[in-house]
């Protein structure tokens, strides 16, 4: 196995370290280093993705330690799809900072470290290594959340930090319990060992798996661990929120990995119910919250919560077609949420005193109204963007599954409520208030065009991408009949 596997992890790390040198004090040099790092990440993904497509899953042994003893990195199509999503999001956030004269200190190194943690979490096949990469990305996210510390931001960040620290403690508890039962930390080895446990130890395995699901549910903001998401995402810098849009998808990825690797075993049975309850409840709570949003950023945050709940609820059906639809939905939901947050940032800067609050103030200019329309269509799930395809495929796949009607019902209810909220927001922002003729120099347009272009491309090429998602899910042990 070639050493290309390490590129998505090492490139952001090296970039972050170079950015910390005194050599990179000027903003121009920082942008240069960021650009080189991000583009080389995307380029290095190509050989990995090609190998994953044609040769199936590749496993890379760190330090050349053989499988049961060493830490293993796995490159399969699922990892490549998610790494692609996070890389393009990072490019969008970088592009949106182009014309900014002052960037908060250390935001670029923190962004690259976040990317390193995200990529590592997608690439690892070892549970403790997953914990370590989760901590790297959490630490970077704590820094990014308060990189411009205002009172509301600090106040929203403290519960986020505490809740995630408790989550890390519970993750370690689950890990230790699973290691004591299974004797290994590798997903495959552990699955085999846990499936063949004596009957007296089966309940312990169930408890440990439930603890693990609670940790991933915390990351994915599922009920009842959803309360941190909306306050945090509503108050942080919207560009940072655009990058965080992929972080709730990390929880979903971890859940896909957990259920994909171990789902066929008996000890996972209580865990499926947790997923269903958490997902549906999150969706319904978000649907109710979205119409009460006081500003645009809070509205988008409720929609992020709704998409997280949708994905988890769809995962709970344990159906292959539905899981493939969830993978595609995760891709386009991250891009859509990031697009919306970049628009929120532009609106905040444009409207001055009334910021993005849904009150009558400065009216958006006609070009911005067109963007707002496109972004609203994207958030609700209508053409001409890929979120339409994401929703349609979820509905189609859910119709073939017993009790799938509940998912379709909640999905449509959520879309209806978000449409209502967006229409109300649009009427206040676009059609009421005083018009101002300000010219602002910002590069949001480029970043939003990049994301919108990608979404439209995903719509046009949707057949191929869904095929890849289906191939990615079919490679999981749950659907391969591994005993």
């Amino acid at each position: 196995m070639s050493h290309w596997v390490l590129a998505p992890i090492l490139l952001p790390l090296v970039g972050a370290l170079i950015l910390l040198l005194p050599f990179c004090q000027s903003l121009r040099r920082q942008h240069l280093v960021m650009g080189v790092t991000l583009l080389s990440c995307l380029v290095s993904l190509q050989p990995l993705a090609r190998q994953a497509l044609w040769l199936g899953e590749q496993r890379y042994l760190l330090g050349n330690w053989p499988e049961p003893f060493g830490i293993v990195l796995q490159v399969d199509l699922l990892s490549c799809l998610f790494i692609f999503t996070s890389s393009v999001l990072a490019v969008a956030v970088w592009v949106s900072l182009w014309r900014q004269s002052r960037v908060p200190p250390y935001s670029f190194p923190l962004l690259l470290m976040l990317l390193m943690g995200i990529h590592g979490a997608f690439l690892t096949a070892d549970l403790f290594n997953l914990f370590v990469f989760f901590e790297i990305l959490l630490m970077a996210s704590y820094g990014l959340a308060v990189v411009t510390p205002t009172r509301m931001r600090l106040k929203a960040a403290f519960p986020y930090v505490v809740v995630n620290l408790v989550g890390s403690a519970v993750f370690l508890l689950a890990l230790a319990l699973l290691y004591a039962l299974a004797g290994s930390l590798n997903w495959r080895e552990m699955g085999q060992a846990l499936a063949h446990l004596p009957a007296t130890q089966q309940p312990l395995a169930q408890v440990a798996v439930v603890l693990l699901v609670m940790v991933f549910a915390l990351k994915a903001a599922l009920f009842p661990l959803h309360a941190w998401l909306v306050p945090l995402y509503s108050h942080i810098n919207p560009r940072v929120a655009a990058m965080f849009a992929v972080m709730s998808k990390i929880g979903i990825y971890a859940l896909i990995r957990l259920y994909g690797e171990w789902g066929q075993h008996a000890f996972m049975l209580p865990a499926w119910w947790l997923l269903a309850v958490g997902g549906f409840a999150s969706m319904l709570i978000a649907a109710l919250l979205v119409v009460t949003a006081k500003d645009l950023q809070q509205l988008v945050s409720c929609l992020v919560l709704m998409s997280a709940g949708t994905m988890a609820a769809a995962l709970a059906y344990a159906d292959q077609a539905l899981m493939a639809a969830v993978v595609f939905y995760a891709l386009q939901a991250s891009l859509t949420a990031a697009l919306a947050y970049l628009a929120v940032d532009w609106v905040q800067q444009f409207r001055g005193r009334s910021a993005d609050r849904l009150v009558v103030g400065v009216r958006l200019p006609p070009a911005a109204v067109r963007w707002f329309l496109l972004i609203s269509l994207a958030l609700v799930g209508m053409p001409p963007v890929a979120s339409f395809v994401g929703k349609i495929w979820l509905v189609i796949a859910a119709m073939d599954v017993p009790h799938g009607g509940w998912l379709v019902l909640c999905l449509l209810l959520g879309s209806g409520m978000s449409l209502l909220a967006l229409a109300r927001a649009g009427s206040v922002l676009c059609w009421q208030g005083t018009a101002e003729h300000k010219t602002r120099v910002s590069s949001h347009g480029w970043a939003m065009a990049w994301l919108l272009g990608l979404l439209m491309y995903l719509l046009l090429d949707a057949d191929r991408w869904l095929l890849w998602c289906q191939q990615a899910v079919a490679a999981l042990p749950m659907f391969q009949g591994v005993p």
Partner: protein
Amino acid sequence: MELLFASLIGVLTASGVLLLLRKRSYSVLLGLTLLSYAVNLFIFASGGLTPGQGTILGQTQQYADPLPQALVLTAIVIGFAMTAFALVLAIRLRVVRGTDRLDDTELEREES
């Protein structure tokens, strides 16, 4: 031995969780610290409690499991870095808000 160890972990977890639910930021941080002590002891115990056994070849007849010891070291290091950050955040929050209470102040209730 197992009873002592399990009781210790239980007491530490209980104290940690109790402190986590308090309204002052410093109490919450102390609770996090106690919880991380408990979790680290638990990880260490997952390798089996084997008194008198070493982890270097040739030292003893039977060996203790070295992997949980490595896991505990990693967890301790990550834990203290996180606690340091949380402490600085709590101090900054205290300075900016004027109080270390974690619920809304009068001013914030008026603002919202």
